[in-house]
């Protein structure tokens, strides 16, 4: 590897000051965790138990290796902190979870806590995973998405445009919408109508409908009303509109039916 080589995790207490173009994980097998600055308005990334409509935070059990993670409510508009938990063997990441730093996490094994590192270094560790298998790609995209800064946005947008597979493009759209809808709004809006692949256009609509955008129902209604779109595309917008719990969405569906 060319350039400065930084070994993460030499000591968690040292507090790593890494700003290199490349980095390596500690040579210790097992869990390694590091903190980065989270994107503004990041939702609470944690594990929940639902009591009716009310979610209750739980300790995330890292060893369970679940796919994906839960998010709940948008928190402070100030950038928070994100902890990346990586299961490492032979200095390669084999499993990954990104959680809000104040989300309790547990493993039966020791977690090597590396402390805070800068976002660019963290992203350089995660980016190679985008070319691994589908599962790792999904985890890595999600983790990168919640990193603060333009680099994360740029990677997601690039993957949404020119990902290796359709699935990767779809995941990138989804995580763009989940992590930074204000920044990604224009891109998602243009993807809804302009993406080459119909499946991608459809997924852009879905992603927007699942985002925290304040105008998501209005955007979906615009799509439904747009007679230049194919019926299937308008139908897709209706479908996601029906998932909305807003009265605006329901009123609109009723208005369509009683016209």
């Amino acid at each position, binding site marked *: 590897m060319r350039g400065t080589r930084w070994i993460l995790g030499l000591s968690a207490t040292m507090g790593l000051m890494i700003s290199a173009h490349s980095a390596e994980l500690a040579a210790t097998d097992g869990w390694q965790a590091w903190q980065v600055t989270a994107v503004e308005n990041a939702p609470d990334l944690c594990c929940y138990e639902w009591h009716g409509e009310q979610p209750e935070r739980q300790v995330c059990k890292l060893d369970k290796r679940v796919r994906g993670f839960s998010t709940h409510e948008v928190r402070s508009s100030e950038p928070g902190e994100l902890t990346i938990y990586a299961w490492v063997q032979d200095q390669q990441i084999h499993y990954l979870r990104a959680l809000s730093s104040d989300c309790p996490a547990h493993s039966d094994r020791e977690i090597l806590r590396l402390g805070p590192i800068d976002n660019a270094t963290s992203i350089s560790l995660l980016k190679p995973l985008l070319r691994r298998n589908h599962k790792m790609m999904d985890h890595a995209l999600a983790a990168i998405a919640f990193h603060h800064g333009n680099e994360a946005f740029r990677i997601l947008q690039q993957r949404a445009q020119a990902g290796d597979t359709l699935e990767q493009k779809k995941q990138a759209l989804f995580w763009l919408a989940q992590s930074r809808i204000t920044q990604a709004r224009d891109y998602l809006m243009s993807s809804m109508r302009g993406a080459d692949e119909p499946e991608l256009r459809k997924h852009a609509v879905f992603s927007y409908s699942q985002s925290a955008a304040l105008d998501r129902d209005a955007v979906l209604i615009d799509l439904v009303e747009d007679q230049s779109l194919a*019926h299937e595309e*308008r*139908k897709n917008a*209706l*479908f996601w509109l*029906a998932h909305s719990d807003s009265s605006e969405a329901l009123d609109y*569906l009723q208005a*369509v*039916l*009683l016209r």
Partner: protein
Amino acid sequence: MKPQLLRIAVIITALFVSNAALADRVSDKDRLKISAIEALMVAPQERSLPVLKKVMASNNSTVVKERALFVLGQIDHPDALAIVLGTARDNSSPLQGAAIRTIGISGDTKAMAQLATIFSDGNRAAQKKVLEAYLIAGDANAILNAALDTSDDEIFDVAVSRLGAMGALEQLKQLRGKTGTTRSLIQAYAISGDVESLLLIARDDSNPEQQIQAIQSLGIARSESDKGEMFIRIYRENDRMDVRRAVMHGMMLSGDDTGLLTLFEESDNEEEKTMLLRQLVMMDSDAAIEAIDKALAE
């Protein structure tokens, strides 16, 4: 197929087929409305039910209301049930058939119990829809009762064919015990694979027409039993040419070229041998060549 699986298959098929059919006969406006109704299927019922009620009370087209009825049938709420049942009971409603079918798809016990009354009070179209609903719900006993109650031959035949499609052997046997053999029953035995019942009729010469139909039906009845042996036995037991022709036909339908070759070899009647050979040729069977070679050697 288990009733639950059948119901799921019917729901999926209903959506798929009707969507394909709708594309041709529905205005763009109604297509959008139908999409809106389908979208409501994913909404919580406390949100979708009030909207669907309004749709049913509106001036919307029949095709839009049909879809609304379908979605109402999937909602577990007394108000939804009341609308579906009310429509199913209304002999003058253009939506009656759709409502009855919806009940069958939903499989709702309370609604299903009402179908017997709808059957007895309904016209022929409604009765056929009730039988279809029973079929969808997998309720063979209800079809049996309907067949026993009706005095309409057409409805009886529909009921019997539904039982055949369901493979309801027990109900078909009960029906025969009470009504005697009918043409539709023989068809149903064939469809349901009831070789035992077919064989009884095939060996009973009191009604030659039914006997012939039963023999031919043996050829298409799905069965694990050795039908070849049955055919040969019937053939040997009967001198009547119409019976023998029916056996040949049945053997051809079941692909039994070995049996036909056996009969060819046994026969010393030229006309009969010619007919057997013709059946083998029609089956494109290698046994035909074998038979020809044997005939040449004689």
